[in-house]
């Protein structure tokens, strides 16, 4: 029965993370059928994880070329603050939500340019950039939350629902599908994966490594800014460090996602699954009354355990 064991192994390795996620959902449903396992709560979860999903997909792009962007949290904070301030300044909403994306595009290109042109480790470059962005945000706001005189229309994106479905959830699904398409159905996506797989071999095969990497950094920064703007819109205010906390969670989602579908490779559905698992855990544990600090401890342990299990499975090959 060797072949059936090999098959089981393969299925477990590819879908183990998904199965674990489903088990978590079943467990919560059993423990609290009345509050967790309701349609309303599931829709709430999709809204709660929308920020995490979008910012993690950006991080996935940069990780797919073998780099890190540690400035995503600070970029999200800056994006939210910029959009809010522009709205307060009386710009039309379209401009208030577009200009921060342009700023993010520029910042992402600078990140990518420093990494590719000067060969500075992306870890260091984006750590520095994150600090710079944090300083900029503080300068812009004086350290205070932006909430006075924000027009009502600013909240449309974050607070409206289409029927029972929050607009935020639709944003999340759209971004996921679009970037799944980009990564899996376009030449650009294939090139990003090629660079992440073996940069030198990709270069020899004619891939323009530097500009593709810069594009990945740019898209990542724009998705981070979008996340920050949606958060600000949801809350009706922008806190100067509002997005910072997302950064570690985003990488937790990417790493969880790397254990699913494409083993060891950052991928969009994996990241989505990772973010869902993290979101379900947070939601379910809160419903069960587990204190936040305990949630953090459990989440961290689960990420590490998932990666160890995946290594373990590969080692047996």
């Amino acid at each position, binding site marked *: 029965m060797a072949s059936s064991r090999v098959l089981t192994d393969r299925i477990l390795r590819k879908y183990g993370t998904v199965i674990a996620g489903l088990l978590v959902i079943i467990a919560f449903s059993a423990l609290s059928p009345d509050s967790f396992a309701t349609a309303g709560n599931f829709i709430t979860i999709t809204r709660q994880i929308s920020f995490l999903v979008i910012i993690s997909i950006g991080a996935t792009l940069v990780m797919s070329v073998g780099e890190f962007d540690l400035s995503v949290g600070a970029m999200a904070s800056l994006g939210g603050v910029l959009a809010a301030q522009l709205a307060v300044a009386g710009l039309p909403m379209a401009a208030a939500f577009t200009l921060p994306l342009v700023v993010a595009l520029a910042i992402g290109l600078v990140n990518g340019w420093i990494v590719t042109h000067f060969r500075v480790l992306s870890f260091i470059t984006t750590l520095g950039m994150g600090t710079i962005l944090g300083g900029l945000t503080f300068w812009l706001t004086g350290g205070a939350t932006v909430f006075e005189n924000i027009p009502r229309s600013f909240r449309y994106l974050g607070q409206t629902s289409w029927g029972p479905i929050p607009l935020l959830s639709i944003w999340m699904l759209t971004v996921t599908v679009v970037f799944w*398409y*980009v990564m899996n*159905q*376009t*030449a650009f996506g*294939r*090139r990003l*994966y*090629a660079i992440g*797989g*073996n940069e*030198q*071999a*990709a*270069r*020899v*095969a*004619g*891939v*323009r490594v530097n500009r593709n990497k810069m594009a990945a950094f740019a898209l990542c920064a724009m998705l981070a800014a979008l996340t920050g703007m949606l958060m600000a819109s949801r809350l009706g205010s922008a806190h100067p460090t509002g997005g910072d906390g997302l950064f570690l969670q985003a990488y937790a989602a990417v790493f969880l996602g790397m254990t699913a579908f494409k083993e*060891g*490779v950052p991928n969009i559905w994996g990241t989505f699954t990772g973010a869902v698992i993290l979101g379900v855990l947070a939601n379910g544990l809160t419903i069960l009354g587990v204190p936040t600090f305990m949630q953090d401890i459990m989440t961290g342990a689960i990420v590490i355990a998932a990666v160890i299990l995946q290594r373990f499975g590969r080692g047996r090959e």
Partner: protein
Amino acid sequence: MERLRTEGLGKRFGAQPALSGVSIGILPGEVHALVGENGAGKSTLIKMITGVYSVDEGRVYWENEPVTIRSPYDASALGIRVIHQDRQLIPSFTGYENLYLGQRYPVSGIARGVRWKEMKARGDALKASLGIEMDLSREAKDMSPSEKTMLEILRAMMDECKLLILDEPTAALTDREAEKLFALIGRLVKQGTSILYVSHRMEEIFRLANRITVLRNGRHVGTVNRDETSRDALVRMMTDAAGPPAESGRRGRARGEAILKVNGLSTEDGKVRGASFTLHKGEILGLFGLAGAGRTELLEAIYGLRAIREGTVEFAGAPLAPSPAFCLAKGIVLIPEDRRGSGMIAGMTIRENMSLPVLDRFASFFRLNHKRERREVGRQMEALQVKATGMDQEIRELSGGNQQKVVFAKAIMSEPAVFLCDEPTQAVDIMTREEIHRLLAGKAEEGCGIIFVSSDLQEVLDVADRIIVMRDGQTVAEMENEGVTAERVLSVCYRSNGEES
């Protein structure tokens, strides 16, 4: 009494003997040179003497006692030190600190603090005793290549060193720096240290060595006294003089117009220093040189992977921008030497690897046309008879030969006019090797120009229409492959610079 003696030393890797029947003796105070072509077994022999490889056949004697050297630690306990071609120093440590790598640090009292003064004094004393002038308080990364060599020799001398093995020690040195090294070797020999000296450079060997051991294809051809031999005689020993002369390379192919012209090409890093040649349509141009002659670097410079300082590359009459993407678009493709490192993306499928250089051909608007991709990849896989479970198998699961076939299939996908092949048959089975030779011959017949680099001189003689020889980053000779012998090619390789060709 011989310091080190080997009797019938042999080593096999799998079924293949890498070394057999090597019996050499090294006397105290002798400089013993070890020569042979690439792959003759010099490194294997050194690794066996220094305990990196186990001994499969034969015996090793140290000062007339049979010994088993199980590890580099054992070797150094006997007094055997090796200085490798690539420097083994910690760049951010000072000279003194590097001297003490692998040594017990002198420490004091309960606090176990390092006694820097004592370290410094001992380093300076050693330096003085060997007549080396250098500042050991600088960090290794700020030292010149020759200072690094001196530092390594000093380190070797920290404990009693009875046999010093130098592997191509002058490879990175200028002539003046090499002089300093030779003077130092002279002083060491006077103290009674034995030296095993590995080099490609004949003039050094004739200047330093007392005796010379020649290896060929893993066999010990002979050991001769320096005064009783000549360079030509040594080259004859290194090549299979009894072997048949290479059959004529040209097989009725018509050589067409010039397609690639390289004029006085030099790279920023000095690995290529003024290379010039012309490649024609319909020919296989063999590029040969000893290890470190700059063959790989020349191909990389043409393909835009290595920064060019001066010189030009012309393709079909127009200057070539140095970038892989541009080269591919124009019709030049590189089959890189390092297959795993630059030839393929191990974690991707055969299909994804093969279509990478020509993705734009399958992209319409923002979508990849997978059907077309599969059709073209499938056709090319069939043409090259790649053995795999399918095009969606990951390339890392294939055998070396099949991986190389995929690399070739990928190259052919871009319909190139020029192939730059760097060791295209290394680590592939004999069948695949012949298939690759046939494939290249076929491409030449179709009118492609092919540059063929191989460390296996016989292979170059078998395959090439014309041969360019490189030495020290320069193209030094060009010959039609008609009745050319290995001996003739090697005699050019071993000639020193400045001598008339």
